[in-house]
């Protein structure tokens, strides 16, 4: 019963996240950029590449480290 409750909670949370991220990625951001027809200035283009770079680094670190953290936490509990 406990795990079922947990799953229900997770389901609600991840539904909210999935829909809001989808909205931002597909409608909100490109929508604004499309309607305004903004042409990137040098500063904005720089920021854009920094965004791509930083996102890559954070995603990479997260992916590389998290499994090890989980592994050690699990080992401690056993």
């Amino acid at each position, binding site marked *: 019963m406990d795990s079922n409750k*947990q799953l229900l909670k997770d389901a609600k*949370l*991840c539904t909210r*996240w999935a829909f809001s991220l989808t909205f931002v990625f597909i409608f909100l951001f490109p929508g604004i950029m499309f309607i305004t027809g903004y042409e990137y200035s040098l500063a904005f283009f720089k920021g854009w590449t920094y965004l*791509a770079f930083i996102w890559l680094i954070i995603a*990479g670190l997260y992916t590389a480290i998290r499994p090890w953290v989980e592994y050690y936490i699990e080992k401690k509990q056993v």
Partner: protein
Amino acid sequence: MLSSTTGYLILLIFGVFFTGLTIIMQKRRKEKMTAEQFSTAGRSVGIGLASASIIAAWTWAATLMMSSSTGFKYGISGPYWYAAGACIQVLLFAIVAIHLKRKAPMAHTFLEFVGKRFDKKNHKLMMGFALMTNIIVTAMVILGGAIALNSLTGMNVYAAAFLIPLTFTIYTMIGGLKASFIADYLNTVMIFVILTIFATVVYVKFGVDTVYEGLKAIPEQSQMLTMASIPGLFFGMINIIGNFGTVFVDQSYWQRAIASKDSAASKAYIYGGIAWFSIPFAIATFMGVSAAGLGLNIGDPDASAPLMAQHLLGSVGSILFLVMLFMAVMSTGAAELTAITNIIVTDIYRKSINPKASGQQTLKISRIVTLSFGLAMGLLSILLFKAGIGLSFVYMAMGIFVSGAVIPLTLGLMWKKATSTGNFYGALTGMVSGIIVWLVTAQVRYGEISVASLGELHSMLFGNVTVFVVSGFIAIGHGLISKQEFDFDSLKDQFHSFDEEQEAETKVTKESESKDVLVNG
């Protein structure tokens, strides 16, 4: 240009390394490998490993090559649309994944669920869709890798297409899904590392300013520096719609939910989706867009990424790119292979051929299926190549063939009123009418039905949209009219572990284990 020996060496080194790693890990494990372990990795995978594996399964060779091509062609909107348009399916998949986890906690494949939720007809149709998806994706991935190896090292295409599946088949056969998870993790991390190297070199060696000036100098109508690019938007729409099929109908994504702990199942997709976004976004921005900005002389935009890698770091760049590409190929290949094996063992062998098979027998069959399919996939890829079916064409057209199942499947999990009849005819009619619209658009707009006109943006877009509209309309419509209600609770006890007899013996240990899971979860 590298020598063909480099190509063979890379295949050999990675094949031997991962096989060796799997054997060592098997030896160190205390428990014995069982059929259930083989196909579900013990249902105990945490968020970190699961999300790394989702990233690996969704990072195709095409993700690296085609995204750069869109950056080169459409400018900055290309990378964005590639990344955003293919990441939301993984995010949204989190929702259906958790419903499967809740309604059928012991299922092995999503088809097993379909078989109990709907009638036999649906099970067979969905299995057709699923196997088609897995086989096409595997063939595409192997071929993509083979073509890249061939163009970068001059290695024989047929030899490459046959050797690539060999590298991941052997370790998958030994270690099952868990081995594929470990390999996925290492591959994903390597891909991130190599991409970071490339991005850094672009900054250090050329600087963003040079790239920007170069992009500015490209003639006005090419819209390189704005998101308001019409071809970019069109590509984005096709990418969004077309990719639903390749995620929702592909057992390898369901498998990652099935293998996860209850508490990890949904979150892994959200984290995985967000992290995956950065891969095509970064590679296409730093390799594709930059190549255009630096004015690299590139004949075929599809080759922009490897050429840029060479431009950046010479033959070291080429080797790094090749390694990255090969790792993407290997982990997607292994994921697809375990998916095919699970479908054949769960939904054909255990369902129709030998329902009373013992755990031992099931494990043996699983291994045989993995090995024979791994070897057969090499041959199949060669056949597809010989038949002259192009990669980007298949990539774009795939949505039309498999997406018919997306809405019916999702409804089956989430909506108690979905009916067998509505779903069956929804999926089937959706696919058929999508193909008709696709052909008709090509004929009417471009005057002929040919690979070129079918590959045009309009034909693809109309075909894809039709599939969704028709399948959704029929499946929802019939559900509303017939007013049946399905009791999801009745499913709970219908799924069984592959290791029933063994589990009866070791029930005591199992119980203590499940207590652990509760504490951990």
